[in-house]
């Protein structure tokens, strides 16, 4: 039984981790909590749904969906956030705009698809299971976990070992100096949004495979919890976001498993973590202090 829950937890944690990384990267470079990020997860799932109903190649549909979601993510930056950043608008305006973008995406998809959950179709491959001493594990869980770890490694490698990655870390440290050095900051920020959106939409697709019922509001709660995970792990740290995601996944699964009466409070766990961390250790687990380190 414990083994079963363990795999559920890692699977759920992976999805939170994927989405949390996007939040943390955007916050790192822009000091902005991108409320609309959770909705990118929803957008990714819906695009996959659309593309898979058009072409019977699931892999291709997923790829196209990730690309499309990245475009949407980059667009939200270009159209909604950049103009305000250029005008040096107060933070509150950016936050309100982010909320506006979030609502726009949710209602747009609500208008196109209706609010009733859609059945998400995927190849039966993912439904197959293997059994390890009474724990039944679906192929989809395994794929989720493996790809998440793989992607995490790539992102960390990118940030620490490539020129662009270093530049992004520099922006998070001191954006003005970087601009003064003649580096195309705008391009790099777009890159951050693209990477974040790719990860979020991938997370959304994994979520849709595990729980094949998608609706325009599916990203709201998951997004908020992923944000809590990012804060828990240390906002600004990619590794922290991943760790936070897994901790949240484990907490949700095991608290419900050991205290079934608390099942209704499952969603509150993320917020409790969030509030505690912000009150007592705002820099989170990885303890990133923005004056000293990054990512």
């Amino acid at each position, binding site marked *: 039984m414990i083994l*079963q829950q363990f795999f*559920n937890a890692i699977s759920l944690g992976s999805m939170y981790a994927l989405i949390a990384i996007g939040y943390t990267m955007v916050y790192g470079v822009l000091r902005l909590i991108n409320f609309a990020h959770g909705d990118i997860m929803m957008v990714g799932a819906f695009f996959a749904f659309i593309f898979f109903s058009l072409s019977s190649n699931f892999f291709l549909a997923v790829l196209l969906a990730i690309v499309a979601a990245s475009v949407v993510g980059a667009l939200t930056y270009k159209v909604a956030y950049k103009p305000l950043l250029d005008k040096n608008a107060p933070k509150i305006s950016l936050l309100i705009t982010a909320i506006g973008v979030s609502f726009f995406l949710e209602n747009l998809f609500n208008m196109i698809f209706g609010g009733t959950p859609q*059945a*998400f179709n995927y190849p039966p491959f993912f439904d197959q299971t293997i059994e390890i001493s009474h724990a039944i594990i679906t192929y989809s869980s395994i794929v989720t976990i493996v790809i998440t770890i793989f992607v995490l490694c790539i992102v960390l490698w990118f940030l620490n070992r490539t020129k662009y990655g270093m530049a992004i870390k520099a922006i998070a440290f001191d954006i003005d100096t970087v601009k003064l050095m003649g580096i195309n900051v705008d391009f790099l920020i777009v890159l951050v949004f693209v990477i974040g959106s790719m990860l979020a939409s991938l997370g959304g697709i994994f979520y849709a495979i595990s729980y*094949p*019922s998608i*609706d325009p509001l599916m990203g709201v709660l998951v997004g908020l919890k992923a944000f809590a995970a990012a804060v828990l792990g240390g906002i600004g740290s990619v590794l922290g976001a991943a760790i936070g995601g897994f901790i949240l996944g484990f907490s949700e699964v095991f608290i419900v498993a050991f205290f*079934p009466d608390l099942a209704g409070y499952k969603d509150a766990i993320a917020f409790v973590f969030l509030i505690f961390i912000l009150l007592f250790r705002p820099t989170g687990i990885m303890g990133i202090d923005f004056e000293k380190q990054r990512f």
Partner: protein
Amino acid sequence: MKKTILTLGISALISTNLLAKDIKIGVVMPLTGAIAGYGQMTKKGIDLAHEMQPTLNNKDKIVLVYVDNAGDKAQTANAVNRLISKDKVVAIIGALTSSNSLVVAPIIKKYHTPTVAPVATNKRVTYANPYMNRACFIDPFQGKVAAKFAVDNLHAKTAVVIIDKSQAYSAGLAKNFIKDYKKRGGKVLKVLFITSGDKDFKAILSSIKAANPDIVYAPLYAPEMALILKQAKTLGIHKQFLAGDGVSDLKTLTGVAKDASNNLMYSDHFNEAAAPTKLSKQFVAKYHQKYNNEQVPSFAANGADSYFIIVNAMNKCKNPADKECVAKNITKTKKLEGVTGYITIPKSGNPTKSAVINQVQDSKAVYKATVNP
């Protein structure tokens, strides 16, 4: 001479049509939002009924005025007020869920507007309200139906009950089932809770596996039921699930659960295979014609019956726009030939209806039995 007759004839036709009034019936339904699927199903039934009977016996034309409440209470209140004071409707069909119908009830009572709720099953909806009625059975009955079926037909000695604590419908139905099931000698091993919007049910499914009941009674809505069935299949849990009319949105249910939904049994208002009246059979045939041979959902049947109940009451009134007369005549409805059966509505506003038990097979509702009150 011919010309005069022609002109006289045409003017007679025109004047009778001009004299024929428009009688408005308002409809409050969730046409957008999470439960839009149910609202759209009901709308199809109402529209078809309107096609079948677009005018009253005195040639007055019936006009349907739809207002979307998006499943929200405040919008429901606004919608009802708008229909009564701006559109000046004579009667109202709505709302869909019990929660929203509870909002409708006091308002239509205040403004003396006869109303029929198509599928709201919570018993409080028609309390102490001579203007509020419904076209369906109530939860105490539906719970009993399930308990009776579980004991008599499924021979289930033990059951586990799953309740969606965020839906009045689910809790009401479950409570009634448990009461009646225990009376019939059944044993409820466990009561488990979920919340609408939950996606992961592996924890409660493990509980069910451990308890090993004969059946699982889960009066839930389609989205949650679908995920539970799917995950049950993945975990290798093969138990008989029994549900209520909330899962009748088969498109959503089977779309998500696919073949995991087979063998699910549920109580419902109607199955086209057991069309009880001549009107039913007509309705079913027309529905197939209009909607591409799609199976008739029970909500559509109830929507149609709501329409027929109101029209029947209007026809009995000298002035069909007289709201008091229509309201009184609705509660005098006796053995009206409807789609779901012969409908009689007493003063309480609650008709005595039979329930059917359907079983899901390959995305279709297969008729299993009728349970009479």
